[in-house]
């Protein structure tokens, strides 16, 4: 992608900026707009309602209207807030969640930066969100925000451990930290996906399947907690803490937190897709290859990648509107007493299996 742009515009720096900004403007912003609407529609239909119906056909312009409204709002700030931290926090959260997309391969052609420590970068940069949340919660000088931020930080940091252990397991199997390489290993058909044992030969593949299923469930639960979604939406627990760490925020800064949440949901869904479900690869083969139209293949890949990721986003929404919320101590119990021991057990077993 980057090389292609260098050839196209003939300038390294310009190509770099375009490569960095393209996913944001082409995919993530439209996605965020769509996801907010989708959440409202999904919840509405689950609850025998219609949801937004007035703005555009079946309310498809509702989020656009909301964003326009939020932009026009006065930039409110309580007098006792820590000004600079308060102003900076939403951007840090926003940055942390959007920067993660830089290393995600949307197709074999469309990848912001194909670095060799992609997986490591992904985990590291998404931890920036924690700093932003803590800043926002502390600088608001509001007890609800503080409680929410404290909960959030302990939650995200705890749940990063099972995520990291599962990621480590996958690194052991794939032997790479490069997300592009990991995706490419699971090429051809769906039985090569890591959830079905990857491309390992013979008996090892079958031994891996139950372990991979376990690893997938663990990483799905822990990423759900990392992005603060129900049943782990304790930091924002509306009925207890009003809105958690962003209680004091309004207008566009609030929208920043909101969009970051949805971007985060998508980022972790993509991570799961890449690690377990073949990344951008089609489960059945490509129409472009069959027809001999080569430029069609990346587009198909993009389609598969996006649909796999969006399915997980949909599952996250579905869970949100079905399940109640856990309590803080129960949340920690789930993490430290169940997820972490199991993930370490899986790590050990996978290590044994790969020795076969």
């Amino acid at each position: 992608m980057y090389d292609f742009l260098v050839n196209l515009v003939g300038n390294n720096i310009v190509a770099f900026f375009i490569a960095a900004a393209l996913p944001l403007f082409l995919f993530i912003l439209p996605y965020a707009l769509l996801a907010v609407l989708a959440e409202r529609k999904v919840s509405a239909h689950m609850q025998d309602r219609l949801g937004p119906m007035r703005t555009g056909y079946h309310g498809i312009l509702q989020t656009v209207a909301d964003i326009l409204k939020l932009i026009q709002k006065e930039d409110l700030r309580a007098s006792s807030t820590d000004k600079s931290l308060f102003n900076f926090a939403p951007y840090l959260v926003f940055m942390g969640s959007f920067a993660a997309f830089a290393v995600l391969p949307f197709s074999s052609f469309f990848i912001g930066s194909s670095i060799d420590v992609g997986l490591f970068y992904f985990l590291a940069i998404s931890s920036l969100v924690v700093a932003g949340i803590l800043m926002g919660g502390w600088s608001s000088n509001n007890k609800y925000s503080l409680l929410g931020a404290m909960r959030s930080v302990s939650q995200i940091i705890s749940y990063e451990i099972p995520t990291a252990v599962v990621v480590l397991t996958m690194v052991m199997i794939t032997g790479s930290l490069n997300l592009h390489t990991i995706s490419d290993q699971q090429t051809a058909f769906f039985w090569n996906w890591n959830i079905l044992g990857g491309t390992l030969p013979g008996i090892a593949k079958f031994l891996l399947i139950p372990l991979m299923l376990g690893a997938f469930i663990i990483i799905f639960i822990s990423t759900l907690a990392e992005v603060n979604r129900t049943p782990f939406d304790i930091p924002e627990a509306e009925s207890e803490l009003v809105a958690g760490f962003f209680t004091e925020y309004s207008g566009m800064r609030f929208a920043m937190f909101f969009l970051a949440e949805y971007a985060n949901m998508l980022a972790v869904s993509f991570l799961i897709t890449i690690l377990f479900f073949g990344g951008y690869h089609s489960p059945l083969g490509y129409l472009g290859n069959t027809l001999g139209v080569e430029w069609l293949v990346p587009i198909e890949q993009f389609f598969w990648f996006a649909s796999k990721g969006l399915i997980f986003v949909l599952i996250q929404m579905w869970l949100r509107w079905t399940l109640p919320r856990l309590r803080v101590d129960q949340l920690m119990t789930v993490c430290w007493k169940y997820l972490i021991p199991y993930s370490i057990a899986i790590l050990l077993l996978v290590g044994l299996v790969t020795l076969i």
Partner: protein
Amino acid sequence: MAIKTEEMVLNMGPQHPSTHGVLRLELELEGELVLNVIPHLGYLHRCFEKHCEAMTYPQVVPYTDRMDYLASMSNNLGYAITVERLLGIEIPERVEYIRVIMAELQRIASHMVALGTYGVDIGAFTPFLFLFAEREKILTIFEETCGARLLYNYIWVGGLSHDIHPDFVRKTKDFVRDFKPRITELNNLLSYNKIFVERTANIGILPADVAINYGITGPNLRASGIKWDLRKNDPYSIYDRFEFDIPVGEGLYGTTGDSWDRYYLRVLEMEQSIKIIEQAIDNIPDGDVQSAVPKRIKPPKGSIYTRVENPKGELGYFIISDGSLNPFRVKVRAPSFVNMEVFNELCKGHFVADIITILGSIDVVLGEIDR
């Protein structure tokens, strides 16, 4: 150097998503642990009792609507029965049957709000809307009958404001038929949900002796395992003619008298109310609903205390008559107010999140606490 620590005082409400109105809670916290809870009341005080002294007896009825605004019919019923006993008048059969059906429908509607908002408190939003869709059907039945959806002013002293709508019987039967599967649905979606049980079982345990000492009534008392229901123990209207059980808390998932018990008891009570409605709906006799309404209510000198089983608990009216057109004194024993007193006892040593759980499980209505 010693680190200085202090308890955090968190002011929850009066503007808060889950204080069920304008309740203000002052929480003393150590981290997330609650050391003490002080409820501050009075944000909704409207001088109901003083107002009544300037009103004639029938004029008080609309005021009773506004106490427990989720159970206006039951409030009307209590007041009407009290004044009728003071006057010593006989009520036509038809009126009694309609009153019972209305009161039981109202009980279901009130419990539905309690259960739904309880779900929201715990983070499950969907059951709330499912229940409100059902409640809507009850409100439609009420609206057709008396023209109002929330504050009915329907049950008058000596009768009713209107006769029932011709569609009333059919619609009520339809509702009863459709409602039974909804209870199963609610149980599957929320009541037996693992997370919900984890959140509510063993939280805010109210032992039977504490409940009696504090004068707790209604579902909260029965959830502690005490079979006390005024419809059976001190029958009013025609409740002695119907077959129904008094469910009590059994501590199915935790200890008897915990939040889950209080929640689940309301589910069971809705089933019993359905049972009463089914028995009453086919037997409504003919007659004039206003034949016994007195033209001029002027009770003899004296006083009376009457209590009825409201959805929230025991609603008592104490009325002193000085022989004039206006009551000399109207005192209301509001169940929510009494039930609220035990709140601090239940909350100590729990987490912030549990405060919301416990408050929701007690099911208070601020309109009734402050009157």
